[in-house]
Every structure is written in C-alpha cells, then in structure tokens.
C-alpha cells in the first residue's frame, strides 16, 4: 500500500463519493456553529423546508458578539443588532434541536475552545465551522477548517461538504524552543517564513521535536494560525498527550469505545516515505520571541529587530509596507522595543486557554501594569475562567491592574463593545493585525501571552526574556 500522510488518511476515511473529475463529497463529523455566520444558513433551511441532518453532531455557542463585562446578563450591554444575532442562534438551536451552550452557561466560550474542552473534537475527525480559525482543532489530528455560510447550510442539510483534496505541506520544527519562546512564536515564525499566501491550496502538517514537546494548548495555538499562512487546515499527529487531553471529556468515548477509539487514533500518523508537495524546516532554537509591526500576519520580526523600510521589499509588497507603516504610525529603523502601547489584550481562540493565562500570570505575578495602560484578560471559556480563578491566576491579573472578563472573542475582532479607538495601539495575543481589525484606526501588534504581559508592565513592546531574568 502506498505511504500516506496523516491528511491523506483522514481524507480517505471520510470520502462519501468521488466524481470522475476528482470532486469529492466529504463526510463531516462535527459541525460547530456561532451566531455571526449561521443565521442566513438556518434561514436557507427554513425557506427550503430542510432539516439539520445530524443535530447530534452539530454544536452551537454564541461568542463573537457577546459582551465580556460582568454585567452582560443585562441585555442593554449589547447593541440591538448583536442581540438579534444572539437571539437568532438561541432560536435556531432550539428549533433545529442542536447542542447549545447559551451565554448564561458556564461552558460558554469561544467555539474553538469549547469544542475541544467538551470533547467534541477528537482525533481523526473532520471538523468544520463558519469561522476560519477552525484550523485550531487540527491540533488533535483532526481535519478542521473554516467554511462560508453557504457551506454551513450545506453541512447542516447534508452533513457533507463538496471538496477537492488539497496538497500536503510539511512544516517541521526541529529541536527545542529556547526559554521565553512559545507556540505563538512558532506559528508566527512559520508565517514570517512562508508568507500569508504560502499555504494557499495546502493542508499543513506540523511536526518535529518542538511540536511534540508542546502541550495540547500550545498545539492548538500553532494550528489556529495555519489560516494566517493561507492554509485552510493545520494538523498535528495525535499522541499520548492528545489521548490524555481527550480522556474523560464529556463527549469523548468511554470504556470499550474509548479503547477502540485509541486503537484507531494510533494509526493516524504520516507513513514513512509519504509524499509532501512542500516542506519547510525551521530550527526551534532559532526562533526568538516575535512581534508584528505591520498590518499582515507575515509582517513579523524578533522583538530585538527594528521596523523595516519599504525598500527592503519587492513587488506589490513595497506599496503594502508603506501603507502599513503609515497606518501603524511607525518609521523605518525604529526599534520594535521602543514602540509604546496603550492597550493590552490577552485572550482569543489563539491564546485564551489556561496555559496562556498561566504564562501571562507568571510574568505579572507581584507586578503592576504601567499607569495609563488599558489591560484586559478575556478567558476563552467560562471553564477556563473558573480554572484560572481556582489556580489564583485571576487574582494575579486583578492585582496587576488588569480587567478580568467573561468569555468571548472580544477584542480579537471587536464585534462586541471591546474595541480600539482610532490610533490606539494594542499588544494583542490574537491572530490578525489587519487594518481596522480591533476597531477602525486601531493598531495591533500580535505577540505571545508572556510578551503581552511584559508590554503591560513596561508600557512598550518588550522582550519577555528581560522580565524572566528578573524573576529568576
């Protein structure tokens, strides 16, 4: 039998039908739904009299619009259009009989954090959601990617997607990471290397020692930003860490079914000699704490670097860099560590998990944010929030002067009231630094949770390793 990649194996196990031209109908094991990209899809079902084919495999949670302030039970904290979207999801979940975690449920949170947390996401599955950061679930060795609303409707109605197979892209991170360097830096380093279109048409498999050494939380961070590199999906082969994470989760199999599942999951790896269409190798020890300076996730440099000049680039990127520098209010040659910030945002499906909060709290412990800085921590789910409170992390954030919020997408995309004002500069643990992403005119620098905490303390972008040295 031909050697196959992990992607090949998952794909093969989900093909329902293959047409002569290679177009496939792919079975979908888990469909995650949130309030922003689903109302038109449910409306489509109503108009055609169709039902949800597999409501037991469909899981919905509101996250994009929901306020994260403690008073959010008060409906007045939401704008009318946001409220209508959340209410539409409440109603659709009820009408179509799908699993649902309403805003009032402690398990509510960002859909990509809730799915794994509740054991919906398991190795070898196909997982889709009307959200590009569905790539997150690839950390479990599941084929997971974002879809548009028409496809949401298609999956609701048929539990399948019409797909053509992508190409295989291997990203190997060799060796170990140095202190102060995290999963976030790995994923940003890859995008810096390949560009935001480098993964277009591919499914990435992340492998290598540095990936193996990551926790499941870290692996989710890496896969989360596969989309920022242009790849719809990123995958990591499941191993004992994966099984340990899944075991005992509410929707993970139990008993004999668990044993059977693990036996199958252990076959989910890339065979020796399997073909990759593209390979990139990065040495783990070469990766430094990174930060973005521009308005594309590929605009990334080590914190020790300086702001580049448009003349360092070629082609269409020259104009884009000039535009980015104008937008970001930066000048070539300026040290990145001299850039003063106004706001710190810790959270999102990229870095809103317990390990991220631990990393930030480790830097903040016994310290205070700089006066005048607005700083907030938005846990990725109600359960992450509860755990952080139990571990004493919440108190560290509060003592440091951070706002301790309820779960949601929050300032990652600023669809709720958490937004930047024009010109406001933010150190953010989220995933996109696009123009206007966190609020019109807002300036975003992407970085890891530890780096965000360090920036909060000093008031400017800061090499987290300097503060780590202090704590030793």
């Amino acid at each position: 039998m031909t050697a196959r990649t992990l992607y090949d194996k998952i794909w093969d196990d989900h093909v329902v039908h293959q047409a002569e031209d290679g177009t496939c109908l792919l079975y979908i094991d888990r469909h995650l739904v949130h309030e922003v990209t689903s109302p038109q899809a449910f409306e489509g079902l109503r108009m055609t009299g169709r039902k949800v084919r597999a409501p037991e495999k469909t899981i919905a949670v509101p996250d994009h619009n929901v306020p994260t302030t403690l008073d959010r039970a008060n409906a007045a904290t939401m704008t009318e259009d946001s409220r209508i979207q959340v209410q539409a999801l409440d109603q659709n979940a009820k009408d179509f009989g799908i699993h649902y975690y309403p805003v009032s449920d402690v398990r509510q949170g960002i859909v990509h954090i809730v799915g794994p947390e509740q054991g919906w996401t398991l190795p070898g599955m196909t997982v889709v959601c009307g959200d590009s950061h569905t790539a997150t679930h690839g950390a479990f060795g599941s084929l997971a990617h974002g879809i548009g609303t028409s496809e949401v409707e298609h999956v609701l109605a048929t539990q399948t997607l019409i797909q053509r197979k992508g190409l295989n892209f291997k990203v190997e991170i060799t060796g170990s990471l140095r202190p102060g360097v995290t999963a976030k830096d790995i994923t940003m380093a890859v995008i810096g290397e390949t560009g935001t279109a480098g993964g277009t048409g591919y499914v990435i498999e992340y492998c290598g020692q540095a990936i193996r050494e990551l926790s499941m939380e870290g692996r989710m961070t890496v896969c989360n930003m596969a989309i920022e590199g242009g790849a719809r999906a990123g995958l990591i082969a499941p191993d004992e860490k994966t099984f340990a994470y899944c075991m005992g989760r509410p929707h993970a199999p139990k008993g004999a079914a668990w044993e059977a599942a693990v036996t199958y999951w252990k076959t989910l790896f890339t065979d020796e000699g399997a073909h990759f269409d593209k390979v990139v190798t990065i040495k783990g020890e070469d990766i430094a704490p990174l930060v973005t300076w521009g308005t594309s996730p590929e605009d990334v440099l080590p914190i020790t670097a300086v702001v580049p000049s448009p003349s360092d680039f070629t082609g269409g990127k020259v104009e884009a860099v000039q535009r980015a520098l104008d937008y970001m209010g930066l000048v070539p040659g300026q040290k990145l560590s001299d850039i003063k910030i106004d706001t710190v945002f810790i959270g999102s499906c990229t870095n809103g998990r317990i390990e991220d909060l631990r990393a930030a709290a480790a830097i903040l412990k016994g310290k205070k944010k700089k006066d005048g800085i607005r700083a907030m921590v938005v846990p990725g789910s109600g359960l992450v929030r509860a755990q952080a409170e139990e571990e004493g992390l919440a108190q560290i954030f509060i003592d440091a002067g951070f706002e301790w919020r309820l779960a949601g997408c929050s300032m990652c995309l600023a669809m709720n009231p958490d937004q930047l004002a024009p010109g406001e500069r933010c150190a953010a643990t989220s995933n996109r630094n696009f123009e206007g992403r966190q609020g019109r005119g807002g300036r975003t620098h992407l970085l890891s949770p530890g780096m965000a905490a360090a920036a909060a303390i000093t008031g400017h972008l800061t090499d987290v390793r300097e503060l780590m040295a202090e704590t030793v």
Partner: protein
Amino acid sequence: MDKFTTLTGIAAPMPLVNIDTDMIIPKQFLKTIKRSGLGVNLFDEMRYNLDGTEIEGFVLNQPAYRKAEIIVAGDNFGCGSSREHAPWALLDFGIRCVISTSFADIFYNNCFKNGILPIVMPQEVVDVLMADAKKGANARQTVDLVAQTVTTSDGQSFGFEVDGHRKHCLINGLDDIGLTLEKASAIDSFEKKNAVLHPWA
C-alpha cells in the same frame, strides 16, 4: 444563484496585495441576519471617512469606477476570515468577477457559491489587465466563462483555468445542496458503515 456565462463591464484596478476580508467588509457589518444590502459598506473603511463622506481617492469612489463589475486585484485577495459577507458585499455592489494572481482558499470558494467568478491569472497577465483597467470607464473588459477567456478593452485575450464542477454550477446557476441531496443514499451508507467502524464519531 444567478447564472454566470459572459460579462462585459468596467474593471476597477486594486493593485494592493493582501486585500483582506476585514477591508472588504469590516466586522461591524457582519451583525446582519440577511445576505443582501452590504454593497453600500463594501470596502467601508477605505471608501468612507469617519463622518461618512467619501474618500475621493478610493477607486470605487471615482466616477469612472462607480459602476465597476470586475476588480483586478493584487496578490492574495480575500485573505483572512471565512465571512461570506465578503462576496455578499461584492455582489451587492455589483461585482461579478475578481481577477488576481492568487486568492485565499475560503474566499475563493465562497465566491462560486454566490455567482461571482474569481479568476487566477499569472502576474504578467494581471499586469496587462491592471494597466487596461487603469484606463477608466471606457476600458470595458470581457469575461467569457464558457470559453474561459478574459479580453481587454483593446482586444487582447487570455485564457484561464477553472474547476469543471464549479464552472458547471456557475454557468447553470445550480444549488450545491440540491445536487448533494441526490447522493443521499451514499451518505446513508457512509453513516451506517461509520457507525460500526468509528462509533464515537
């Protein structure tokens, strides 16, 4: 979905690379439960000042391009989120075709579901089309999906590739769900088989 066969229209040049979905339709306009009405907010932050007045220099505000039906764009158009609001906004404005050297996967896919044709062309062809588009309103380009060609205002013609299934759906305005439901028995048997092989899934 409206059929797409041929289109002759004004092409707007947008040479900027990495035009992302937040540029195409900023998040505040995603709070809708409808598919229509987004055209007025297409490229909102590039197109309007904070007070709502138009930014004169923006291409779609220029008299020559206000009725553009084609966009000729820089690399990696549509990168970012999966929001189908991006093609909905383009369509609502009147754009039926986008030409670039590359598109983000999800955006590319979403276009076909809404009767918009995204065309990938090599850099040298995009350069020619971009220069042609910059001539303004008299420079109408013709996109022929059946023949798979784009023709400039002065008659230069270039072929392009498109997936056969997607072409078929676009030319006939076909609904994917209807087509898939014709294969319901294959889905049934997959589910039966899978319930035995992977009962936890």
